[in-house]
C-alpha cells in the first residue's frame, strides 16, 4: 500500500467489462514529506475519492479483487481503499 494524491479522472468507453460502472482515477504517489513523486497509477476506487484527496492505494491483485468482491480472476491491481485524514510520523 502507498500514499498518493488523486490528480485526475480517466474516461474510457471501450474497456474490459470488469471496469464497467467503476471510476478510474489517476493517483500520483507521494513522498513522506508530502511532495509528489514521478510514480503514478490508474486506480479503481472503492471509497468515493475525488480529485485532490490524499488516499491509500492498494497495489496487489488478490486483495484488490477481494475489495471489489470479484473472487478468483479479473484484471485489477490498484484500488483506492482509504481517504487519509491524518498522518503522524515519529521524528
Amino acid at each position: 500500500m502507498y500514499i498518493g494524491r488523486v490528480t485526475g479522472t480517466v474516461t474510457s468507453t471501450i474497456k474490459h467489462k470488469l471496469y464497467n460502472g467503476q471510476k478510474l482515477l489517476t493517483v500520483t504517489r507521494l513522498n513522506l514529506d508530502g511532495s509528489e513523486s514521478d510514480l503514478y497509477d490508474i486506480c479503481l476506487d472503492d471509497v468515493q475519492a475525488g480529485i485532490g484527496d490524499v488516499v491509500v492505494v492498494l497495489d496487489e491483485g488478490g486483495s484488490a479483487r477481494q475489495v471489489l468482491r470479484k473472487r478468483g480472476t479479473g484484471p485489477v491491481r490498484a484500488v483506492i481503499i482509504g481517504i487519509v485524514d491524518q498522518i503522524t510520523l515519529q521524528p
Partner: protein
Amino acid sequence: MKFARVIGNLVATQKYRGLEGVKFLIVQPLNAQRQPDGEAYVAVDATNQAGQDELVFVIASKEAAFALPVEFVPVDAAVVGIVDDVDDRPLYDAESVAWKVFMEAR
C-alpha cells in the same frame, strides 16, 4: 495500470496455446502527463479494438492474463482500455485572472 501509446503491432503465427486470436501491440509507456517514459514493450490487446497511435491503459504482471478469454496464459502486459479523455486540470489556477478577482472579492 499505466498510460501507454500504441506505436505498432506484432504478428506471431506460432505461439503458446491459448493465445490464438490474440493481438499483440507494441506500446510506448507514458508518464502521468502522457509523455513518453521508458522503453517500448509488447502487450496483448484485451480490448481487441486498440489501433495505431491510440492512448490506452495497460495492466502489468499476472493480472494481464486475467484480461484475456483464456486465463493463465503466459502474458505480462495487457491493454485493457482505450482512453477517451483524462481530466487532470488543477481545480483552480492560482495565476488566473478569475481566481485573483475571486480572492480580492473575498
